[in-house]
């Protein structure tokens, strides 16, 4: 079974802090994605990566950056956390562009 893990289930940070959210997948998937999930808005794509060191902006990239130094690991970085970045963050991976995405358990981030 594909396994996607995220470094924390719950995280509390202060405004202005630099925040790292880590995601690891164990099935050699090419594509990895970061979403944020907010009530009434569904999931919105922040960034995605289709290969090591390759990345593209999603629909809401402002205030975020990403890093993919190894195929199995995709990191989301909040350079200076703000209260409007309080949300549930979901990581996902897929083998090919038509394939199902496998999701991690999510990180609920609270920025105070």
């Amino acid at each position, binding site marked *: 079974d594909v396994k996607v893990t995220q470094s924390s289930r719950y995280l509390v940070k202060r405004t202005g802090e630099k925040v790292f959210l880590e995601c690891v997948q164990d099935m050699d998937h090419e594509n990895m994605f970061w*979403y944020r999930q907010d009530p*009434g*808005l*569904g999931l919105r*794509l922040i960034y995605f990566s289709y290969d090591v060191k390759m990345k593209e902006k999603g629909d809401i990239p402002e205030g975020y950056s990403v890093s993919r130094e190894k195929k199995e690991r995709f990191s989301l970085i909040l350079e200076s956390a703000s209260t409007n970045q309080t949300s549930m963050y979901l990581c996902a991976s897929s083998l090919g*562009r038509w394939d*199902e995405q496998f*999701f991690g358990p999510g990180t609920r981030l609270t920025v105070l």
Partner: protein
Amino acid sequence: AQTVTQSQPEMSVQEAETVTLSCTYDTSESDYYLFWYKQPPSRQMILVIRQEAYKQQNATENRFSVNFQKAAKSFSLKISDSQLGDAAMYFCALSRGTSYGKLTFGQGTILTVHP
């Protein structure tokens, strides 16, 4: 721009009954996939069913089936013989054909199953 709309924020069903969740979408692409994902409370999101746009036949997975109306841009999910374990948030999603499988999600529908 692609959009996915789920107009039912909440639905409920009695155990063993049938329920249909609605989804409409808009895309200018001719090549795309549609998905229903399930997010149980405090558990990971999983795929329920997938439909290729070029296939006219509706996809079916056990108790789950879709009604895909391409001209109407409608993609509803029917759950037959509902079980308590079906209680979850359900998301409809559209895959953007041109680029690496990026998904556009709907707002989600919370399904409650009553015993």
